[in-house]
Structures are given as C-alpha cells and as structure tokens.
C-alpha cells in the first residue's frame, strides 16, 4: 500500500459483493477502495459500511475482524461513515431479527420487521421524502426514487436524525444522519443518477461536517 490515505474505503468483512459500490464511486470521479486491511481502514478519510443478509451474521462477521471497534473509534474522531442497507441498520442499538441482536449503537433506536401484510422483502424503487436537511442529499430531488431490497427497517428514537422517509406500509426512516455518521436503507450504487449524486456528496463530506 502507498502511504496516501484513501478518500473512501469500503469495509470488506466478507459480506456481499462490494465491487458495485466501488464502481459506483468511480463513476462519480471518486477513487474508493475495498479493503479488509485494518491499517487502510484506520487511515481512510471516509468509511463505507456495507451489509446484506442477516443483521446478526453481519454484526458477527464485523466483530470477528475487530472492525466494530474500528468503526466506533473512527466515528468518534469525526470520520464520515456511510452505512448502506444492513450497514445502516447496524448503526442502531438493536434489531428484532431472530430475537434481539445488538448493533453498533451509534444512533439510538432499533430495527424492526415489516408487517406480514406486505410483500417482504420490499423489492424495487421507492421514493425518499426529505426531512432534516443534510449535505448527503444536496442536489437530490425531493421524492427521488432509490432502489430498495430489505425486510427490516430502522426506527430511530431521535426524530432529528431522520433526513429522509419512505412509505411502505408505514413511513420509515430511509436516510439518517447525525453529523458525519450517515446511513441509507436503499442501495445508492444501484439507484442510477440519484444514487450516484448521493455517493458523490458523501465523498465530499469533511470530517465532522453536518
């Protein structure tokens, strides 16, 4: 590795295919790298926490590599963090998936399952209604569509972290942020223009920025 810190490092903890996230950043002109090297992750200017599948399995895989503590340390320093899909859910305190599983607890609140009345997982393009303004959504149109695939959703305890809401049976938080700690329930890397715009915004977030 060169000594130069990565603009964006995507945390590789053995879950899912991260190539599409890397390619999407590249399309916005940002050089993002996928890494499982703690040194690289400790130096990167911004971190992306991806996640697919089960919440518990993701937390376990993250913890086995010691990356849970790494994420807590880096965010405490003010390093911008973007949790994507289950990566967003992991920012919260706990999930009700398979009983109760603890999350990172960076944001207060829990993760709940969609009602059995709905087609689950929610699969497809849904709209984000913007709430508390944040630089992450700069230039993103009100009501823009993003691509979602998920069975669980986040229920923040503090309303002021909700930057975007989406309606699927209920109105739930689909974009959250507190300072430079951000999370999106959809897949920006699969959400065409709107998704690329959001990734570009993230790649331009400075430490501790709001």
């Amino acid at each position: 590795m060169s000594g130069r810190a990565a603009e964006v490092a995507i945390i590789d903890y053995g879950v899912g295919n991260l190539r599409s996230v890397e390619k999407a950043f590249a399309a916005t002109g940002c050089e993002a790298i996928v890494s499982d090297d703690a040194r690289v992750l400790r130096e990167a200017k911004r971190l992306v926490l991806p996640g697919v599948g089960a919440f518990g399995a993701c937390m376990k895989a993250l913890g086995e590599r010691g990356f849970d503590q790494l994420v807590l340390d880096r965010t405490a320093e003010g390093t911008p963090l973007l949790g994507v899909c289950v990566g967003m859910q992991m920012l919260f305190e706990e999930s009700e998936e398979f009983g109760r599983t603890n999350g990172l607890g960076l944001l207060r609140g829990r993760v709940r399952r969609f009602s059995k009345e709905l087609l689950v997982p929610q699969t497809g393009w849904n709209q984000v209604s913007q709430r508390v303004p944040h630089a992450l959504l700069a230039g993103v149109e009100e009501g823009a569509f993003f691509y979602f695939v998920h069975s669980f959703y986040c229920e923040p305890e503090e309303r002021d972290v909700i930057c975007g809401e989406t309606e699927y049976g209920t109105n739930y938080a689909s974009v959250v942020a507190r300072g430079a700690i951000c999370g999106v329930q959809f897949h920006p890397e699969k959400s065409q223009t709107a998704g690329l715009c959001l990734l570009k915004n993230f790649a331009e977030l400075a430490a501790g920025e709001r």
Partner: protein
Amino acid sequence: MLAKRIIPCLDVDQGRVVKGIRFVSLVDAGNPIEQAKRYDAEGADELTFLDITASSDKRAIVSELVRRVADQVFIPFTVGGGLGSLEDIRAVLRAGADKVTLNTAAVVQPELISLGAETFGSQCVVVAIDARRRRVASDAAKGWEVYTHGGRRNTNWDAVEWAARAERLGAGEILLTSMDADGTRDGFDVELTRAVADAVRIPVIASGGAGKLEHFYDALTLGGASAVLAASLFHFGEYKVSEVKNYLRSRGVVVR
C-alpha cells in the same frame, strides 16, 4: 410508494444479444453492453440477462459479460441461464450481478434455492418458471404446467404450486413466463399471473406476450404483478421503456 418495475430482458449467446421467437428462431439484436446502457438511459428499472451460451467456457464468457455490464450500469441486474450449482451462482454474483434466476436447476434440485438463499440471501434468488396452460379440456385438469430445459420438457408440475413451494424454499422473486403467450405479442397471460401472485407473498415478474402498452397495464393491475419483463418489444425499438412508463403513469400506475 413502491413503483412497479419495467425490466428489459436481453437473451445472450456467446456474448451477443439474441431473441428467440417461441423459444426457437434466433435473430441477432446486438451488443449487450450498448443495449444495457441504452435501457439504463431510457429509464429501465432493472435488467435481466438470460444466457444461452452452450460451450465449455460458458462460465468465463458469462462472467466477463457481467463484469463489463457492472462497470457501466448502475441499476440492478439479474443473470440466468444454465446456472446449476452454488459455484455457478457465486461466479456471476462475484462478477457483479445482483441476482440470479434458477429455472431447470431449481426443478432438478430444489435444495439449490435454499442453499442459494442461505448463502447469498433470498433477494439474490429469483426462481424462473416457464408455464404452459394444460391442453386438456376438462375442468379438473385446468391450470398450468411447469416446463424445463428451455421449454422442451414437461415436468407435469402445477405452476402455481411450484411457485408457492419455491417461496417456501427461499426464493425472493418469481419470474413467470407464459410459454403460450411468449413471442405472440398478444398480451401477458393475466390469469396465470394473477393465480401465481395470489399464491405467494414475494414479487412476481410477468413475462411473455407483451405487444401493446395496455398489456403492461393489465399484467400490473389485473395480474397483480410487481414487475413486467419484455425482450423483443424493446430490442427492436417498437416501444421505449420511457413510453411504457409514461403510458402507465397516465393510467395511475406508480412508476419511477
């Protein structure tokens, strides 16, 4: 609100787009990367690649195609056609596909659905069902049967029951093709679509028979489909994806 999806399908052989009419004749329809980019620009919600390459280096050919598409297209895409093992699934997902479709392999080894779902998540596993209306006139024998091997072999399985079982095994979506309607451009089999949509709690993608704008509307409303898939109609430029969406929007259907 969650939007209904329009999905162009590219049938690919040896890295080129082709399209079968009633599963037989093939007409060259061009370069898959260029077509993928065109559909992306026109507002396609997803893309599906059905690979029909029959050669020993199939896996390498498909992975290379998937990689090239993933570099340039930022919407979800699905790859299917002859995937028969967990390793086949892993190879296309690793190359950058978001989902796979399992058709014959799912019938031959239904446990592959569960294995795929447990390993990569249900959202990755689309079970493709080629269904044909039973030819018998009596009421007792009504319904649709599942065909495999590109529509050549009748399993005698009931399509609606198979869809429900596929869901229980872990499928995240059903890609439902009416063999009777496919290539006719007379419209989707709305009755089949509705029967399957009512039997499962996962999205159903209706396929086969799109010819007019109202056909899409019928499948998404009367048929209860979450998405519609079409190939030749888009390839040969009769309709653009954006025209289909404008039409659906004008009739009150939520589209992106």
